[in-house]
């Protein structure tokens, strides 16, 4: 971590005009970057400069900028969301870089995530996965009293940890196989652990796993890079749970 107030950086940024363009890395100077800035604010500064020069600013995704929405994310020097543990790109501060550093910035790379432009990728494959089973069907009616379904604290905690997933796609980006297992396992776990999700657990596990394969995500080989890179530090114990849920559904339930 640097204690300097400002730093100068060389950026190598993936520029790609559109999904069909081949794209390449381009070099930019980021000068007098305050170390209190976030990574996205640093990109804002560079974009302002590019705009003044009449050039096309770098496209990148972002929304909340407080680490909760899951919109931001690029691969920074080979690391999804950059080098800090449990941090989204918007929460990564420039004090973690040093004066004179070269930073290579690339989009998430996966067959299932097509580049829209520059660093912005199409993650609608995750929406398709959620539509395949990442929900509970609730019949409308009066809401029941919260306390009438007892849930052990330990179970509630596990479900809550899984529910911390913000769907940013870093797990896919970091996985050497571009597998979406951590994402799917977080969604399946969150719902399978709770009574409200249990009735549809078998259907959900089968449907989400089949959809995951159809979308072109890779196969998990337990490399555990996803867990190490997840900004919400979702555990791979969820992947083991997904496997159990899937085998239960595939071999022992009557769901087709």
């Amino acid at each position: 971590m640097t204690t300097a107030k400002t730093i100068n950086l060389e950026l190598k940024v993936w520029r790609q005009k559109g999904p069909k363009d081949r794209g390449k890395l381009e070099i930019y100077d980021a000068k007098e970057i305050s170390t209190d800035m976030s990574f996205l604010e640093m990109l804002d500064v560079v974009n302002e400069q590019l705009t003044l020069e009449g050039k096309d600013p770098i496209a990148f995704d972002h929304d909340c900028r407080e680490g909760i929405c899951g919109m931001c994310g690029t691969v920074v020097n080979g690391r999804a969301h950059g080098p800090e543990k449990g941090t989204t790109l918007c929460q990564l501060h420039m004090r973690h870089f040093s004066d004179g550093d070269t930073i290579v910035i690339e989009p998430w790379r996966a067959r299932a995530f097509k580049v829209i432009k520059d660093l912005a990728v199409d993650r609608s494959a995750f929406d398709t996965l959620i539509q395949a089973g990442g929900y509970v069907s609730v019949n409308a009616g009066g809401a029941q009293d919260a306390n009438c379904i007892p849930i052990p604290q330990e179970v509630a905690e596990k479900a809550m940890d899984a529910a911390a997933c913000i769907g940013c796609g870093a797990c896919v980006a970091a996985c050497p196989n571009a597998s979406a297992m951590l994402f799917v396992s977080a969604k399946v776990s969150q719902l399978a652990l709770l009574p409200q999700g249990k009735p549809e657990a078998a259907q959900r596990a089968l449907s989400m796993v089949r959809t995951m394969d159809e979308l072109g995500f890779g196969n998990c080989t337990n490399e555990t890079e996803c867990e190490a890179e997840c900004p919400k530090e979702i555990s791979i114990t969820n992947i083991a749970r997904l496997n159990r849920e899937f085998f239960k559904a595939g071999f022992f339930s009557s769901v087709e």
Partner: protein
Amino acid sequence: MDWLTNTIGTSIGKKLLMAITGLCFCGFLVVHLIGNLTIYGGKDFFNAYVDHLHSYGPLINVAELVLLTLAAIHVLTGTILFFGNLNARPERYVVNKSAGGRTIGSSTMPYTGFLMLLFIIFHLFNFHFADHENQTVFEIVANAFAQRGYVFIYIVAMIIVAIHVSHGLWSAFQTIGASHPKYTPLIEGVGIAFSVIIGIGFGFIPIFIFTI
């Protein structure tokens, strides 16, 4: 039977095949190693073990057939998974950096696996398909390991097996869903210990034979 192919055919189903066949191989390695260790008992002791083993006759043929089937499943499924995974990321990163999750074992599974396949074929031609009429099994082994080249190949192969299994054992448990905060660290430890024991246990036999 659609339910079966639909379940086995998915990515998790294929992983299950890898895990079950892989664990069976780990079991085979244990039995094979225990058998091979009889070589430290000398020529007669070893040949007696071999004769005893062959006295099971048809049972041995069945075991060989089972192993061959498991191998075919493990290798074919592994190959399908490997190419599927390459295909899942058509555009590679310019900079690749691990976040600390991968190990030597995990990042080389398909390569160590393929090298093992070559080794297993080599190994079978060395010993299994060798002339068993005019020489004892001990003689076959002793003749092979009198040559530096064979000793070297076998030691390298055992290091490769150890690397494959160092990830494989733990990974198979995770794949079948056996993950628990109380036991997973133990399984990981046992996996490493197992691979060291397998590597050293098999790897020292060629050295021992070479030096006698």
